[in-house]
């Protein structure tokens, strides 16, 4: 009669996080996960794109002014730090208000993400518009594509 309890013995508590695992399964490439991968929807979300001579990182950090985000690059790891104030949930007299949803991340955050090799962090630049930061990291000269001319024999 205790057979049913067996299923509770195996594995880690992680098995109960089946939804997360299911989602990660859909969105990751195979079962190999990047060591710095984060669950979907972590704040701020990041996209990375590459052109011939730059790598561009887009940080979707709604609500942050340019001075609210600290951007560091060390050993090809980009680290973003910042803080976002929560929306006030209290009245002028200090009593709290009913909150129906609080989905937006607030408070301090730190996110790190690995960048491709061969970037020149010294010449990196960052821009900000409408809550999106664009960080432009030029590739080092020796890694830029170049055309090789064929010499006449």
């Amino acid at each position, binding site marked *: 009669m205790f057979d049913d309890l067996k299923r509770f013995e195996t594995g880690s508590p992680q098995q109960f996080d089946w939804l997360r695992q299911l989602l990660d399964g859909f969105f990751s490439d195979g079962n190999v996960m990047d060591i710095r991968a984060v669950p*979907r*929807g*972590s704040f*701020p*979300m*990041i*996209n*990375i*794109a*590459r*052109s*011939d001579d730059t*790598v*561009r990182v*887009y940080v*979707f*950090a*709604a*609500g*942050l*002014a340019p001075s609210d985000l600290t951007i560091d690059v060390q050993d090809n790891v980009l680290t973003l730090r910042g803080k976002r104030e*929560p*929306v*006030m*949930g209290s*009245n002028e007299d200090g009593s709290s*208000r*009913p*909150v*129906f*949803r*609080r*989905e*937006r*991340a607030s408070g301090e955050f730190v996110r790190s*993400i690995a960048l*491709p090799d061969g970037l020149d962090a010294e010449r990196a630049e960052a821009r900000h*518009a*409408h*809550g*999106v930061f*664009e960080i432009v990291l030029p590739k080092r000269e020796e890694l830029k594509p170049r055309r090789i001319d064929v010499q006449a024999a």
Partner: protein
Amino acid sequence: MNNVVLSSNRSSLQQRGDEKREQEALLPAVDIIEESNALKLVADMPGVTHETLKVELDNNVLSLEGEIALDIAKGLSALHAEVRGQRFARRFRLSHEVDSDAITATIVNGVLTLTLPKKDSHRTRRIEVQAA
């Protein structure tokens, strides 16, 4: 390029391929708070500007829609994409006490703040308990 949030000036060929993707809008994270005279809704819509934001009220359904308007250089290919889409959309059913003519919306740094005032007759009143 398709996976990097897509700039608005794409070729028609790309656009055809993206039609399906455009249907799938991203769901913005929201905070909703009750204030004494209004409901307050705050939504994260990074990349959405005053020009690309659409707030509509139809039959008591409030819809928020915003296109991510990024000025993305040409010739990029995606390495990593957490934001997969170029549009945010979310809809809410309003209750009857919201004064739909008095709704105000602002968007600053990609954060939309909507104030939904309550009709006068529905505002909070504190009821004093009389001494017996």
